[in-house]
């Protein structure tokens, strides 16, 4: 009878040990899952970060500002050339006269 009771006690202790093992094992499994979650969350954050930078990069690459600069430069150049032509037309007669005078005057 005593031995039976003793065996029952041992059984209780073994069961307690097994349950303790399961508790610790579950905690370890949860830890591994958490580490995987850390990796997954990091990857997700990275993707978001990358796509944000990509968006900024695409904005920089898209040549809207560049096209505007090029057009402005073209317009400025055309205006400058028009002004050159206008201002030169005012003195062209004098220049032609001066050249003709130079050609038809000898210092002999």
């Amino acid at each position: 009878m005593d031995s039976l009771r003793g065996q029952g006690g041992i059984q209780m202790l073994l069961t307690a040990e097994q349950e303790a093992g399961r508790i610790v094992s579950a905690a370890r499994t949860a830890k591994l899952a958490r580490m995987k979650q850390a990796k997954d969350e990091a990857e997700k954050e990275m993707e978001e970060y990358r796509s944000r930078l990509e968006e900024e990069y695409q904005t920089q690459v898209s040549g809207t500002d560049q096209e505007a600069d090029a057009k402005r430069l073209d317009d400025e150049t055309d205006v400058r050339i028009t002004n050159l032509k206008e201002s030169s037309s005012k003195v062209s007669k004098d220049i032609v006269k001066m050249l003709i005078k130079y050609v038809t005057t000898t210092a002999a």
Partner: protein
Amino acid sequence: MNDADASIQIQQMVRFIRQEAEEKANEISISSEEEFNIEKLQLVEAEKKKIRQEYEKKEKQVDVRKKIDYSMQLNASRIKVLQAQDDIVNAMKEEAAKQLLKVSQHGFFNHHHHQYKHLLKDLIVQCLLRLKEPAVLLRCREEDLDIVESMLDDASEEYCKKAKVHAPEIIVDKDIFLPPAPSDDDPHALSCAGGVVLASRDGKIVCENTLDARLEVAFRNKLPEIRKSLFGKVGAA
């Protein structure tokens, strides 16, 4: 030890085992959270750094490309302006060349050839003074032949006075003439607005005193002045 005591002791041991397990599990859970945060932070920071560097490099390349593009556009713009300046200057020269044709035409000087005749004489004297040769060959346009021959003596006399030498022998080439004035029929043909070309007998020394050649010289000499008048600053030729 009776059954009750043994049972209590076993219960205590069971509780102790469970408590130990729960404490251990709790420790694991706490360390799990710490490691989760550290691991995630490390992964994020390391990868973020890599991505940031990658995009910084890409953006730098874009920036360099944009600067190169803008520099090329700026250069093209400058060339366009310089080309326009060149066109304006050349247009002046062409206009002067057109006006020059009127010099040797009837009606430019006092409505007859008197002034052109005088100019031709001066051009011949100038050539003679440059050549300082006892005998020279003179070439003119066929349409100017009569005028040239009519004032050759005057030119020779003036040269003698100025150079204090004997009269040179001037041979007028009646076989080969300078090209005629340009015509509308063939604007690309060789042409000459007037003037003369003198050479030593052996042909080694040549004095080209055509109106066209003089215009070239005038244009070359006056180019900085012309550019300054046109564009307000002395430009490169």
